């Protein structure tokens, strides 16, 4: 089995496969494993199974160590360039460019940050919130001294708080909706630090010469325009599943706005419409890292069953435990719309 992506979904898929007796190889284009976990410095919620109380980068390290112990090979700096209808994968890694012919493929490629165009959006200093998080958490570099955050979901709130902790001034968080979609605990942290959250406001433009110098924000209620002097403008306007490889493979693609947009159709057990191809984690719809981990395990169990390594009864027992856990993870009010979208997708 080949797993594309060494994030929480991919590593857990490989671990579960190894446990079932399937040889798993994980490919990832980055230099280190763990996906986006390695830039998460906040403690995770959830249960013991999903590393609650630990910080993301600690979970990433543990998963990589578990893989090494389980005999899972993880090839880093290895980009999967193509996933062909023949089932072959084209890989570009330190060994050169080569072709793999796996009997099962798990697509765990994660998601990419969304953006939107506005006047001035190409100015240096305008960037994704994830990009700012990479700079500050991973490399210890501030993206700016005075930052405006656009989007009050979890990413926007968490990154705003991390920028504050790192010494930046966050002049505000702008949100077009009338309420915050991120967790209350993150909102309170940001508010306690005195950062104003502008609900029902939208970003109009960024201004500057050779870099962003100001951001214009408009109230959706009275049309009033505020001008913020900033040297960084961060966009936290959602994530989109990375579905390209699945599309290239010929997997049916569905649309679910609640889950980030276009994504490979899959059943409850993470099987796509293409035989031998499975999907897990944010690539299967943007949710939490804890969900990604269990989806990865679920995909691996389905693959092991289809390969004949697990019999139907063994697979069903593991799957029902994982599905019950996923149900619990999706129990919160903020996960409700995602859970409904996932249910619609899987029944369609």
């Amino acid at each position, binding site marked *: 089995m080949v797993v594309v992506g060494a994030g929480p979904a991919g590593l857990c898929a490989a671990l579960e496969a190894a446990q079932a007796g399937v040889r798993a190889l994980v490919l990832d*284009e*980055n*230099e280190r494993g763990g996906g986006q976990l390695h830039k998460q410095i906040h403690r995770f919620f959830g249960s013991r199974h999903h590393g609650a109380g630990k910080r993301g*980068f600690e979970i990433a390290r543990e998963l990589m160590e578990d893989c090494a112990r389980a005999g899972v090979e993880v090839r880093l700096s290895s980009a999967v360039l193509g996933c062909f209808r023949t089932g072959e994968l084209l890989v570009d890694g330190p060994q050169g460019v080569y072709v793999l012919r796996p009997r099962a493929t798990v697509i765990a490629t994660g998601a*990419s*940050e969304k*953006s939107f165009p506005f006047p001035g959006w*190409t*100015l*240096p*200093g*305008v*960037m*994704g919130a*994830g*990009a700012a998080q*990479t*700079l500050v*958490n*991973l*490399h*210890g*570099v*501030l*993206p700016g001294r005075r930052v405006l955050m656009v989007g009050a979901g979890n990413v926007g709130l968490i990154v705003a708080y991390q920028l504050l902790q790192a010494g930046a001034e966050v002049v505000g968080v702008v949100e077009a909706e009338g309420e915050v979609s991120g967790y209350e605990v993150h909102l309170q942290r940001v508010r306690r630090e005195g950062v104003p959250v502008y609900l029902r406001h939208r970003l109009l433009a960024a201004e500057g*010469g*050779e*870099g962003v110098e100001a951001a214009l924000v408009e109230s959706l209620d009275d049309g009033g325009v505020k001008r913020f002097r900033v040297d960084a403008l961060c966009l936290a306007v959602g994530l989109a599943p990375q579905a390209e490889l699945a599309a290239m493979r010929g997997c049916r693609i569905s649309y679910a706005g609640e889950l980030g947009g276009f994504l490979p159709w899959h059943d409850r057990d993470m099987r796509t419409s293409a035989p031998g191809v499975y999907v897990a984690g944010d690539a299967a719809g943007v949710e939490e890292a804890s969900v990604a981990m269990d989806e990865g395990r679920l995909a691996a169990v389905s693959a092991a069953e289809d390969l004949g390594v697990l019999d139907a009864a063994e697979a069903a027992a593991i799957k029902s435990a994982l599905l019950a856990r996923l149900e619990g993870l999706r129990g919160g009010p903020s996960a409700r719309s995602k859970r409904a979208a996932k249910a619609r997708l899987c029944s369609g």
Partner: protein
Amino acid sequence: MVAGEEVTIFVDGRRVTARAGEPVAAALYAAGIRTTRFSRRRGEARGPFCMVGRCTECVMTVDGVENVRTCTTPVRDGMRVETPGGRRHGPSGA
């Protein structure tokens, strides 16, 4: 998070101190340089946008190789980085 040893890179001839292993784009930001290239047609300044190798806004000429994504390319001692698009960061600064 990983504080590598100090190395020196040259950005349009200007010496910039960096930490081994960090991406070129992060080293440039730390040195106060956020323009990585100028757009081909209109000569507009562009800088790192995604920091994960997707958007290609941060491509520069690295050791003579054009269109290198500086956000996913680690610095090496003595590396020569040039700003594409005609304009350059002067030796005295951006």
